[in-house]
């Protein structure tokens, strides 16, 4: 019984972290699906979202506003606005001028952008870890105190629900809305979409903005869940999220969700039953194995070699 509860506890831990990976992974998967490049700076956009949310929360606290829903909504809005603008600007400055060149070039530009943004925040906000207030505390308990009390905190539930809402909204948006249809058209064939009168530049910008907005949501949620932010934490989170995107099949939105959850659970099970030191080894090995045996990921479409 105790072992079972322990297992479920680790499963919940894994699903929580996995769903935020999924939120970040959307940014990678949409961008890759449309212009076929890895947006290395996406992890930094997420980090900036977390910082903005923290700045907004601290600012409201200084003003003496403490009504929780208001604080959360203001923080969310600020984070989304700043991150989306950042996503837009990054695309405009670093990726649009190099689009269509040799595929190494946008990638290197992206790595440069990632280093730049890390240091931008580092210079502006310092390198210290800054505590993030735990706005949502408490949770449910299962099991008695003398065996193993399993707990689900409210923040974990908030993370699940928010992720689900975001994913559903995004899927609807992509399948129903005009821009969503245009997105799909552009990802099918950029040149053709252009000929058909779709403003592809605008669609690509929109992709970056949507991805960045979701990353900002993840930034706020994870900031509250973990408890601190620092300028370097975006990079590794971005790497994990990218792994999740590839795992699920890059370019596929349900794939990003699935990949994120699998990766999160794999990590927490590794920490739970083996050792936390090998968490990253397991996630990267998982990535390599998937790519070797199913190079297009779990839900990806096979790539056709165009001659």
């Amino acid at each position, binding site marked *: 019984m105790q072992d079972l509860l322990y297992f479920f506890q680790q499963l919940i831990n894994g699903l929580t972290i996995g769903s935020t990976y999924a939120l970040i992974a959307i940014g990678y998967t949409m961008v890759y699906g449309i212009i076929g490049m890895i947006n290395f700076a996406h992890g930094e956009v997420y980090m900036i979202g977390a*910082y903005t949310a923290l700045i907004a929360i601290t600012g409201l606290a200084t003003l003496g506003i403490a009504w929780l829903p208001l604080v959360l909504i203001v923080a969310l809005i600020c984070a989304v606005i700043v991150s989306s603008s950042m996503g837009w600007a990054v695309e405009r400055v670093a990726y649009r001028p190099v689009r269509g060149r040799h595929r190494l070039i946008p990638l290197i530009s992206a*790595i*440069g952008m990632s280093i730049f943004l890390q240091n931008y925040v580092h210079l502006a906000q310092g390198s210290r870890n800054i505590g993030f207030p735990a706005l949502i505390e408490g949770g449910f308990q299962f099991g008695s105190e003398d065996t193993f009390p399993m707990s689900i905190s409210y923040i974990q539930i908030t993370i699940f629900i928010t992720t689900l809402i975001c994913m559903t909204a995004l899927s609807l948006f992509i399948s129903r809305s005009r821009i969503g249809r245009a997105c799909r058209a552009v990802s099918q064939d950029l040149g053709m979409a252009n000929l058909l009168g779709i403003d592809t530049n605008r669609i690509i910008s929109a992709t970056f903005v949507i991805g960045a907005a979701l990353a900002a949501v993840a930034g706020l949620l994870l900031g509250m869940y973990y408890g601190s932010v620092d300028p370097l934490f975006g990079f590794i989170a971005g790497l994990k999220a990218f792994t999740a995107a590839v795992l699920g099949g890059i370019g596929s939105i349900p794939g990003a969700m699935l990949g994120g959850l699998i990766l999160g659970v794999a990590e927490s099970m590794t920490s739970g039953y083996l050792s936390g030191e090998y968490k990253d080894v397991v996630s990267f090995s998982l990535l*390599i194995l998937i790519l070797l045996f199913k190079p297009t990921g779990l839900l990806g479409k096979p790539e056709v070699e165009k001659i």
Partner: protein
Amino acid sequence: MAANNFRHALFCAIITLIISYPIIGFNLEAQGISVTLTGADTSTVVLVLLAAVVVFLFQLFRDQIMGGLKSIPSPMPKTQKEPMAENKRAKIESWVLTGIVVLALFWPFFVSRGAVDLATLVLIYVMLALGLNVVVGLAGLLDLGYVAFYAVGAYTFALLSQYAGISFWMALPIGACLAALFGLVLGFPVLRLRGDYLAIVTLGFGEIIRILLNNWTAVTGGPNGIGGIPDPTLFGMEFGRRVREEGNTSFHETFGIAYSGEHKVIFLYLIALVLAVITALIIRRFMRMPVGRAWEALREDEIAARSLGLSRTAVKLSAFTIGAFFAGFAGTVFASKQGFISPESFVFLESAIILAIVVLGGMGSQLGVVLAAVAVTILPELAREFSDYRMLVFGAAMVLMMVWRPQGLMPMRRIHIELRRQE
């Protein structure tokens, strides 16, 4: 059109404000036990506003400015209009390289120790970049985990010297071969992946190797690293103040001169120089051999190359292995120079820097790589006063370089035959 331009410019200026003001204009500070928010000082705010105004004006008059820039005559119009004859250019390049090497041979005897030490570091980066150049520049395989092979070389020497007492000269080929073996073994399964997938898998491998080195405390010393790595010897002469190993003599005693730490530094520098030259020569040779041509063919058009009968796996593997071999070379020298290595020296950023050197150098050109290695290692040292801004500028430079001059400092020109226009 003008109204459109104005709207766009205004939009860009607002975006600039949004992305800079919240982050720069407010400082989160830990005061005692609580986090407080303070507004930045006026000058910072003014700077942010100024930046927005500059963006606004630039976007508003974008067409005029760009037009103006284009009308300025390019500083090197000649080379662009009529490229030098290929063989002449190659000749000049090899003369310049030889000149640099000769200069580099005598240079350390006239400058300070710190400069020589820094130059050794530059040479290690030159070796690394030349090796990665084979993989990325010539074969077109994006390897983001190159630092793993560098680590293999360094750790091979460190472990062999610690457990088996093997000297630098023995460890050099062993380290390089072991790194090459790693390249072969790792490369075999992953090379059928294409482009970005390959990049991310190699990145994963790089991280896995670093984490394993960090966790396998019993053998690698884990985070403590391995210390006491011996310096290279010259025919059994050691350069330390005291002789470490039985049977060796010390350099300064043999020649009856006073001990000076500079001997060691210069000796190490010369070894690095010789190895870098050897690396450059071997790779040069490879480039002219069929396998070198095959790398480039595969990079240019994989399908065409395969239909000409090239074995994709064999060609890619050879590039990967040879690249890894030279990383092992560089790793051994690095371990010897540092005397102490730990997994901290083999992080992803290191891979990114080596990649930046290759790209900056023009992906494929050897002279370019050498210049880029010098630039990337020395400029940050010169700009130490601005050390806070060092990485910021590095990142921005990478982006700008890709936008404005993606072909690098010295783009490589391949030997090709041009059809002459009839006159």
